[in-house]
């Protein structure tokens, strides 16, 4: 557990530093497309993925860099993808919203809200059928629970007891719209109960709590008890996308959540039980900064895909 927590801390810091730099690069217009960063929610991806085996599956959302890093994707190929370079995880075809690494069980960030719920359910069906013991986690925002896909997936996964975990990142907002304005129950665990699926509400900024809840869910899923809904309460520190004017929320609210920043909380815990002294802590941050710098250089120096290859693998199809 101690080793786990140090590694968890390192991954959370790497996400934080990566996303900070991504935000900067986007504002400097070095990154094409648009970018949704994960800053503030690191405990969710890292806590859940720490409960998984390497061959387990995850699906992700438009806000997917954190999930990718937590599942083991290297920062260099991730950054190269955000640049649209041939060395990126999707060879530049996907970009920020579609980072994926199937070799690591990361079945892709997805630009369609709640789509991952369906894909993970299918992956769970597949794992159960193959008897592989794998589980599939879908990360999705609380905005996704009102989409028909979530419903069809939740019912089907529950009725067939599929090894699926619905990891709902309840960061209170879907774009500019507060959760309570669009969702008919305040407590999403109640929504889960409507499917006969256990629904567990977790402090999503407490990585130890997340890890615990996820481990229970994983155990249930692997043991044949079917899916669990994790209602992970968290907050995005930045806007919906980089550049968002954020008129829909108050500074007070943001500040209150900044105080619950999952990284200092974990660091306080690790300091209190002497797992991580402040020197080691600083090393983690500076290592992460170096790693991100190198990822950036790797991305910068990598070539763009060859336009002549735009139809590669498709021309034979028509």
């Amino acid at each position: 557990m101690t080793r786990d927590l140090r590694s968890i801390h390192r991954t959370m810091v790497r996400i934080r530093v990566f996303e900070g730099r991504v935000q900067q690069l986007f504002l400097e217009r070095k990154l094409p497309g648009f970018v949704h960063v994960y800053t503030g929610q690191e405990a969710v991806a890292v806590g859940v993925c720490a409960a998984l085996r390497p061959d387990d599956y995850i699906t992700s959302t438009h806000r997917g860099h954190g999930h990718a890093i937590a599942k083991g994707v290297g920062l260099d190929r991730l950054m190269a993808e955000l640049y649209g370079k041939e060395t990126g995880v999707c060879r530049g075809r996907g970009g920020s919203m579609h980072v994926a690494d199937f070799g690591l069980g990361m079945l892709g960030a997805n630009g369609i809200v709640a789509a991952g719920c369906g894909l993970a359910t299918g992956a769970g069906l597949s794992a159960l059928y193959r008897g592989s013991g794998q589980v599939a986690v879908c990360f999705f925002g609380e905005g996704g629970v009102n989409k028909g896909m979530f419903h069809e997936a939740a019912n089907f996964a529950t009725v067939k007891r599929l090894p699926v975990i619905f990891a709902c990142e309840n960061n209170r907002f879907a774009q500019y719209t507060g959760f309570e304005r669009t969702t008919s129950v305040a407590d999403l665990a109640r929504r889960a109960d409507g499917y006969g699926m256990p629904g567990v509400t977790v402090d999503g900024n407490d990585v130890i709590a997340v890890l615990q809840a996820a481990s229970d869910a994983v155990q249930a899923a692997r043991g044949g008890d079917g899916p669990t809904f994790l209602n992970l309460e968290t907050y995005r520190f930045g806007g919906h996308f980089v550049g968002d004017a954020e008129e829909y929320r108050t500074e007070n609210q943001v500040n209150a959540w900044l105080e619950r920043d999952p990284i200092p909380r974990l660091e306080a815990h690790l300091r209190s039980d002497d797992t991580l002294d402040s020197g080691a802590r600083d090393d983690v941050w500076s290592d992460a900064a170096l790693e991100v710098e190198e990822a950036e250089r790797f991305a910068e120096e990598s070539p763009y895909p060859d336009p002549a290859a735009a139809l590669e693998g498709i021309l034979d199809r028509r």
Partner: protein
Amino acid sequence: MSRQISFGQATLEAMQYAMRRDDRVIVIGEDIGWGGSFGQFRGLLDEFGPQRVVDMPISEAIIVAASVGAAVTGLRPVASMSFVEFTMGAMDEIVNQAAKLRFMFGDQVTVPMVLRASDGTLRSSAAQHSESLEALFAHIPGLKVVAPSAPADAKGLLAAAIADDDPVVFLENKKIGSMRGDVPEGEYQVPLGRAEIRRPGNDVTVVAYSIMAIHGERAARQLADEHEIEVELVDLRTLVPLDIETIADSVRRTRRAVVCHEAWVSGGYGAEIAARITEELFDELEAPVTRVGARPTHIPFSPPLERAVVPQHEEIVDAVLRVVAHRRQAV
């Protein structure tokens, strides 16, 4: 050896062979455990059990999404959507997931799955159970589209579709489902993307698929008997990828083409075929490529209205006569 069996049975044989050969093949859909309207799933539940023959809730979106998720993690699902209209409830999963994942993830994964749906009119099934929507799939890169007319082709093409690494939409016209034909025994594939010349002729090329290939044979017989016009009938079998070579070879000889489908003419896949023929053979055409298809309204229930909207062999005959009468004018 071959024998006469129905289209539905022919596809059932393809399913049986595929499932016996490859345990990655599963089938998923509503009420499939009960055998399907044309017997196309009969006995599969008994032979392969509920793990491989997955009876689903009325949830078309998760039928497709779960198939995609299973396909990218090692299985080869065959998803049954019964009526093609119900695929509209899974269009997001078809267009934005099944068709896109391979491309948007940079070719690191393929999505080997088959989507089976029945289309077309059958005895006044009305607007939500009669339509033909292949044009909506054929436009989307990454989807292959198959629409056979003959039981033997259906068996071989379904086998090929299941073996293919990309998502294939497999459309089964309701009027054909119970029609019988000669079907070889044993396991075989008919390759995707190859049209078949059903009847040779030198006067005009009729390009058709699915039920219209059957109407086309009847029209061709009538044109030969009553008008001494020899139709070359090209049964496309696969819509995407389009076998433009076979079509062009034929039209190069006949200099005239009629393109037929049961779907609406306007914006239908026939427009694509007509445009391609014209692009390739403009200088060789004696007449404009002419299209036969449904008139632009939703399929009505009442039998005389249904007949007025949906084309049969008479409409093909009329179109051929018009095309054959046309002599290109000097510019």
